[in-house]
């Protein structure tokens, strides 16, 4: 009887801790805690992506909002850095890609779902691939980068870039940079 009672109390305490985490904004300069399991599907529907993730909006060469629009969001847990890359895109092509530099690690994540170097990833596309006759909307890539590939806790220099060629056939680029530390390991 006492064992199940203790289990219930432990479950209640865990739920309370998780709900408190919902209100925890990332510490400036530090990547936010994921808080819950992240499913790599490009949907970004876990609460942490809105509430605790570091969010960066790409800027163009003129320092203004990049067009087409791109943004990056970052979360981490004990073993993994989760990276979400959002691309608004009227014409999604296989050659469309984000370039990431996470410290010394360089990653290319493509709209066709390929990621180099290989790592766990998921992609969601709202539109068609390589069909310029219609109007696409966006694609989102979720990456799970093992912290072991980043080395020390940081701070690390983060850099992300995306160049896109909309239907007017004029390439446009946007980028984001930040220096961030991983959350402290317990």
């Amino acid at each position, binding site marked *: 009887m006492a064992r199940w009672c203790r289990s219930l109390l432990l479950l209640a305490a865990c739920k309370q801790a998780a709900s408190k985490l919902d209100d925890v904004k990332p510490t400036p300069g530090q990547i936010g805690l994921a808080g819950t399991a992240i499913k790599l599907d490009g949907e970004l*529907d876990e609460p942490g992506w809105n509430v605790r993730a570091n969010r960066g909006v790409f800027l163009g060469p003129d320092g203004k909002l990049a067009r087409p629009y791109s943004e990056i969001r970052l979360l981490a847990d004990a073993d993994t850095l989760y990276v979400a890359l959002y691309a608004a895109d009227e014409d999604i092509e296989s050659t469309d890609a984000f370039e990431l530099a996470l410290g010394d690690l360089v990653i290319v994540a493509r709209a066709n779902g390929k990621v180099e170097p290989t790592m766990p990833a998921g992609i969601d596309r709202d539109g068609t691939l390589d069909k310029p006759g219609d109007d696409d909307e966006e694609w989102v890539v979720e990456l799970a980068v093992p912290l072991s590939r980043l080395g020390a806790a940081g701070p690390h220099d983060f850099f992300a870039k995306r160049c896109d060629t909309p239907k007017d056939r004029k390439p446009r680029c946007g980028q984001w940079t930040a220096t961030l530390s991983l959350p402290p390991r317990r």
Partner: protein
Amino acid sequence: MRRLPLIALVACGSSSPVVPPIDAPAGPLDAPDHAGAGNGGGKLDDLRFAVVGDTRPVNLDDTANYPTDIVKQIWTDVEAEVPHVAFAVSTGDYMFASTGGNEQDAQLDLYLGARMSFHGIAYAALGNHECNGYTSSNCGPGNTDGQPKNYVSFMTKLLGPIGEPLPYFIERFAATDGSWSAKLISIAANAWDSRQAIWLETALREPSTYTFVLRHEGHTSTTGPGVLPSAEILAKYPLTMLIVGHTHAYIHYPAYREIVVGNGGAPLTSSTNYGYVIVARAADGSIGVTAREYGTRALVDQFSVKADGSLVP
């Protein structure tokens, strides 16, 4: 009370489709007899209105990052237009909210708060995000996706105040001097059914100098349930302009008599910036379209069409 053609009332109330004969006698457009644009339309000195596009945030349920400042600036720019526009239309996708969550009202409240920078009536089209978010979604009583919170919130907050009980509607305008008339038909492509099809046929047959049709998805988004069926109906009747959103950009498709105005704050998919469009009747009866960038109000595009939608050379 707005008077509807008797045939339309019968069509809406009966279970068997009733389509008026093609040669039914045409009378003047029955615009509400009040000065200025209001519920149902109205009598106007000038035909001049604004178009504002999609505003939904980047991510699902991300109310904290709703583009409120951008939306507010756009509506502030619309308000500053000289001459002042008689009314505005919006092309849909005012939210990005999970139907099982509770962010719908919060996002619409942010939108409406920003829209208050504009002092006038706004007629709002239903977007796919006002259903369940998928372009192929179909909401409304009896339809596949039912009436989720997104749909109910849209109906309550955006259409309730303008007296529209259905997601599709017609607003009728007429010149105070009787020199022209215009009907604005808003199609709900994500709440499509046979009743709306019958209603659309009836609405398009009402005689008017100009016919403006508002629909969230453009001609390229064929998975929207009402896109192809409504296009088939539209092809049979006079059309001045089809005004759509869904694509987060400004685009003009002359061959389709279509303008895409989806750059109201939602993440931009092309090189065009956020902005809005002004549609205005000129003295010669042509309809001028002016697309402007928000903030600077810099000119993005400008062209004119005749009442039949053909380009003025």
